[in-house]
């Protein structure tokens, strides 16, 4: 697992967990293994001390027993003055145990008889005095001939019960140490082995129970750090590690969620910006078109006015009048286009106010009536009783309805219809005709500015685009469809409360 220095997240990965000591392992060693090892060492030390004391006592008891065993024959032999029997009794101690020497002294400490290595004289010591005063055995360490010796002294009683001398039994002082040496070595070897087993057990147990799972978790984190943000840690291992993994996953989930929301916000922002740009573009195009329309309007009025003056002059022949008619009709066409262009370009500000649908529709019908009568079409008007008033720009809505009615009129054969209904949230105005139905085009194309199915001069191709613009201004919708019974239906759906604000 290679990690370059550029990685933003530096993680302590353990490829060989037993070769490197982690913090947790250090804690385990410090707070578990070390106390166990120290306590067992103390226990062994105490046990060995006890064993050594016990052994020393046993060895001393041995000497005392040996002393007591020979004190009787030696005392008897001394009573009889039989020195040979004394020496024989002294010699018997070597058979009994690891005794280095035995000797018999008189009550003042002068040596009477001896065997092996013993003191030559006790007169210079306090031992005869101590034995006489206590009547009990005494112990002493001494060096004889370069050897460290331990001696046990026992009083010798005569038949009258008086102390007549003392017996000394000696053995090498190092015997006491030697006896325990082997035990000590074995004990400390076992302790060392025990410590190693504990150490290995803890380290292996840590790796198997915790370290391994922590390593896996670290590997999961590494993958996330390397950019795989959708990666999630597996929830195995001990509860604590699984909880950590779960926490990590939850954190990653919330980060991902936050990122998703951020992306959505960004997308919405981009969309809004694009829309704003579109709107700005439309406003710019609108003001340009308004400028052009205004510039064209005045000269067109002048041309029309001059032509009208000529017509009125009354001194023109038929042909000249006909030509003037042609001029005026073309000027009229241009004027219509300019006016429609002005209508299509959204006004700089709308003027919403409380409107009654019935009144709005009546106004539009009155406006179209001359055209209706000229074309000899009938109009069906059906306004539901429960249609409430709503907020809108009367001028713009009249314009939209007039355009829809004019379209219907031009497509119709006998009659057109207009109706208004509501579902209490929307106002639906339907304008129908009995004509040939919608042309074979994409519906969206029908709403494009300057698209027209009429022959040149009959329509500017701006009518439906104007209606669409007015619908958008009112947050409404324009739908075109073929009626099953023939003809076409235009639906203008307007929200009754587009902004929830009170109508001015």
């Amino acid at each position, binding site marked *: 697992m290679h990690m370059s220095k550029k990685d933003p997240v530096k993680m302590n990965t353990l490829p060989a967990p037993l070769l490197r000591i982690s913090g947790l392992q250090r804690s385990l060693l410090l707070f578990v293994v070390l106390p166990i090892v120290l306590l067992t060492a103390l226990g062994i030390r105490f046990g060995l001390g006890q064993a050594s004391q016990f052994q020393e006592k046993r060895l001393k008891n041995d000497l005392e027993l040996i002393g007591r065993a020979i004190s009787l024959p030696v005392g008897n032999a001394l009573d009889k003055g039989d020195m040979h029997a004394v020496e024989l009794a002294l010699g018997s101690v070597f058979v009994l145990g690891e005794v280095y020497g035995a000797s018999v002294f008189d009550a003042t400490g002068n040596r009477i008889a001896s065997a092996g290595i013993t003191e030559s004289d006790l007169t210079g010591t306090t031992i005869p005095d101590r034995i006489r005063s206590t009547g009990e055995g005494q112990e002493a360490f001494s060096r004889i001939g370069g050897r460290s010796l331990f001696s046990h002294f026992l009083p010798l009683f005569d038949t009258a019960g008086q102390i007549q001398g003392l017996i000394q039994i000696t053995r090498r002082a190092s015997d006491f140490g030697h006896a325990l040496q082997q035990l000590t070595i074995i004990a400390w070897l076992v302790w060392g082995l025990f410590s190693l087993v504990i150490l290995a057990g803890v380290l292996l147990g840590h790796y198997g129970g915790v370290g391994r799972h922590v390593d896996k978790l670290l590997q999961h984190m590494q993958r996330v750090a390397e950019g795989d943000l959708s990666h999630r840690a597996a929830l195995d291992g001990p509860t604590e590690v699984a909880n950590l993994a779960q926490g990590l996953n939850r954190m990653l989930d919330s980060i991902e969620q936050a990122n998703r929301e951020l992306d959505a916000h960004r997308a919405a922002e981009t969309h809004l910006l694009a829309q704003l740009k579109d709107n700005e573009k439309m406003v710019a195009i609108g003001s340009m078109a308004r400028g052009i329309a205004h510039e064209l309007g*005045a*000269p067109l*009025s*002048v041309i029309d*006015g*001059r032509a009208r*003056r000529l017509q009125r002059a009354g001194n023109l022949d038929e042909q000249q009048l006909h030509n003037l008619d042609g001029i005026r009709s073309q000027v009229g066409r241009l004027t219509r286009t300019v006016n429609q262009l002005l209508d299509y370009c959204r006004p700089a500000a709308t003027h919403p106010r409380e409107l009654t649908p019935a009144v709005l529709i009546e106004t539009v019908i009155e406006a179209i009536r001359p055209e209706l009568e000229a074309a000899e079409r009938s109009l069906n008007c059906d306004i539901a009783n429960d249609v409430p008033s709503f907020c809108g720009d009367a001028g713009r809505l009249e314009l939209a309805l007039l355009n829809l009615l004019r379209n219907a009129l031009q497509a119709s054969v006998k009659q057109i219809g207009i109706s208004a209904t509501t579902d209490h949230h929307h106002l639906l105005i339907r304008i129908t005709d009995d004509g040939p139905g919608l042309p074979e085009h994409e519906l969206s194309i029908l709403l494009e500015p300057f698209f027209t199915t009429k022959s040149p001069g009959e329509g500017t191709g701006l009518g439906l685009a104007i209606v669409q613009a007015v619908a958008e201004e009112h947050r409404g919708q324009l739908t075109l469809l073929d009626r099953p019974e023939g003809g076409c239906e235009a639906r203008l759906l307007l929200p009754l409360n587009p902004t929830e604000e009170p109508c001015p």
Partner: protein
Amino acid sequence: MSDSEHILLVEDDRGLRELIQEELEAEGYRVTACADAESAQTVLHDQSADLLISDLRLPGADGLSLLPSCANAARHPRC
């Protein structure tokens, strides 16, 4: 013609101005035509008018700015 009604016409578009002036004069009115509000003010200062026809959008001050002068001229003894 001198006792006919006097119309003050204010229009910055020359073509329209001349057309309207000709039409009105053909109808028998006395017409004073101005291209902007300032010259119309000058005319109103010197003589009264029976009718003011003005474009709203004019270079400099707009057509509505002529209304106070009209009111003053109406109170003038010459009116």
